[in-house]
């Protein structure tokens, strides 16, 4: 389980790429160029650590709206993400019918997601059930926030996974808040992962700002899932350094000091420090990465800005799939 230098740097690059793209979205919103952004900032380690334990193309993903870094690892391109921010034609997840970050990517086994939180959890269980029926040794992973684990949907979905020992992994990204609501108003326990016992599946708490720690916990879970050992509940403890979305103002519910404190533990900062300390990331390489990422992000923005809006007709439908769709 020693990771190669290449892999470590690929992880770092994946985190950086997600971050810079995300930051650009905030800028675009401030500039009034886009109407909405919901961010994955701060969650990059949790997501990239998870992604690197998976086999995109084989494994399935049922993401949630913060999973930008995970999506990029699964093959979403920055151009595609930008199209969704601008609501432009041919947007990959929905044809610009959905708001940004309502992810989905058929070619990568990423199922279309909606806004009502936790609805995706039973879907993940159903995919796992299908895998088991077909003897497919793939794994299905689903992401969710800690607040959304208060929903009955989450409970029921995990219960199915446990009863049928499905190859499913639920990654709870516990960033301590559900919009303004702190987690102690959601639950009377310190760790969501403690709920694993209620289902009869293993649960693990991991530092969600430590990409390697997440990777290790995920590898255990993936191995278990792929070899018939059933589901795992992983809780990655992290923090959202920005407001809930571009519509939010977080000053009413948390102090600036708290935010500043957590920013010191920024997952990219931490991983950069680690790589530097191991001599794996000389300043020149980092600059190189930043340049590459910037070019990607600039290109994506330009592409999306230049892209046309969808034709009105594309709103008409089809509403129903045609007979041959899933033949």
């Amino acid at each position, binding site marked *: 389980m020693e990771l190669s230098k290449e892999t470590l740097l690929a992880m770092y690059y994946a985190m950086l790429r997600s971050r810079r793209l995300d930051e650009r979205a905030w800028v675009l919103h401030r500039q009034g160029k886009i109407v909405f952004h919901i961010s994955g900032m701060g969650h990059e380690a949790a997501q990239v650590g998870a992604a690197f334990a998976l086999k995109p193309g084989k494994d399935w993903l049922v993401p949630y709206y913060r999973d930008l870094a995970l999506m990029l690892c699964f093959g979403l391109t920055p151009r595609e993400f930008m199209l969704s921010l601008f609501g432009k034609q041919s947007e990959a997840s929905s044809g610009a019918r959905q708001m940004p970050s309502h992810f989905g990517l058929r070619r990568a086994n990423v199922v279309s997601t909606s806004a009502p939180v936790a609805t995706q959890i039973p*879907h993940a269980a159903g995919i796992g059930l299908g895998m088991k029926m077909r003897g497919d040794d793939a794994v299905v992973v689903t992401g969710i926030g800690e607040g959304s684990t208060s929903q009955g*949907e989450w409970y029921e979905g995990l219960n199915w996974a446990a009863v049928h020992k499905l190859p499913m992994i639920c990654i709870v990204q516990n960033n301590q808040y559900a919009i303004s609501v702190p987690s102690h108003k959601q639950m009377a326990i310190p760790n969501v992962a403690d709920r694993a016992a209620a289902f009869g599946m293993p649960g693990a708490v991991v530092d969600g700002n430590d990409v390697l720690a997440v990777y290790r916990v995920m590898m255990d879970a993936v191995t278990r899932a792929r070899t018939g050992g059933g589901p795992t509940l992983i809780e990655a403890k992290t923090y959202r350094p920005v407001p809930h979305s571009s519509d939010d103002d977080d000053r009413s519910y948390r102090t600036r000091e708290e935010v500043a404190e957590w920013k010191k533990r920024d997952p990219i900062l931490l991983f950069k420090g680690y790589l530097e300390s191991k001599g794996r990331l000389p300043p020149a390489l980092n600059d190189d990465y930043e340049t590459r990422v910037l070019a990607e992000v600039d290109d994506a923005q330009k592409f999306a800005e230049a892209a046309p809006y969808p034709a009105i007709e594309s709103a008409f439908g089809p509403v129903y799939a045609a007979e041959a769709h899933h033949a």
Partner: protein
Amino acid sequence: MPEMTLIEAIRQGMDEELARDDCVFITGEDVGPRGGVFRATQGLFEKYGPKRIIDSPLAELSIVGVGIGAAVYGMRPICEIQFADFIFPAFNQILNEAARMFYRSGGEWAAPMVIRAPYGGGVGGGLYHSQSVEAFFAHIPGLKVVIPSNPKDAKGLLKSAVRDPNPVLFLEPKKGYRLIKGFVPEGEYTVPIGPAHVSREGADLTVFAYGIMHYYCLQAAALVAKEGISAEVVDLRTLLPVDKAAIVASVRKTGKAMIVHEDNLTGGYGGEVAAIIADEAFADLDAPVKRLCGPDVPGVPFSHPMQDWFMPNPEKIAKAMKELAAY
């Protein structure tokens, strides 16, 4: 052509689809060894085994939600809801997830599945084992809603539903399970989802109905025929998408229209049918558009005198037909 009951036809339809396509599976409460509380799945567990006839946990939202996941993965689930009264925990999954999957993903994903549920009153079931729920679902674009009124249609429509690439809600008039008998063609056939069916030609007025109310309407039409009234009876069969053309065509012919359902009047499906007529067949209308429906109380009462008051029956329908004919 063997004669059989409505429920036998439904069972046979499922049996044949299970045999035809090994992606088809059934899940729901007590569908396994018990064969369903109404015996719709009797014998199927023995024939297809526990991997394809799956006793679910007692949790409707996840019966449907897991079904959706299996469907997007490529399976063809038939989800049984034990009584239509208990479908509402799954309402969010049906409305926000199954029905919207195709459109929201720009046609990339779809949730081909059948949700079966026995509905309706007159069975001594009181408020919570008698509900008619069709109106809530006939307002969900992306979903299909089917209600058979006889064994032949039931089998043929169910087979179409299983093969349909969209989610189909298949509502079964449970009072008719053993009451309604009819001949079912031997061998493979399907009945298409969509078209209504003129089950009795008439000249003086049209009555629109579905499920067991259609069965009663035919009886009522026979009653009033003795008094010289020629009633056309239209079995709507598919409530969504609605067969506007058939509705309008019949009213153009007879000039008078009446809709019968046991569901509560206000906000019921009859409103939609009446509205279509009042718009598109206005010039041909010779009388007010009438609705004979369950009264606006919050459920069918248990005690039988009250239940009888609630339920439409052939006598009440015949009376209303006569009044309309006399207008």
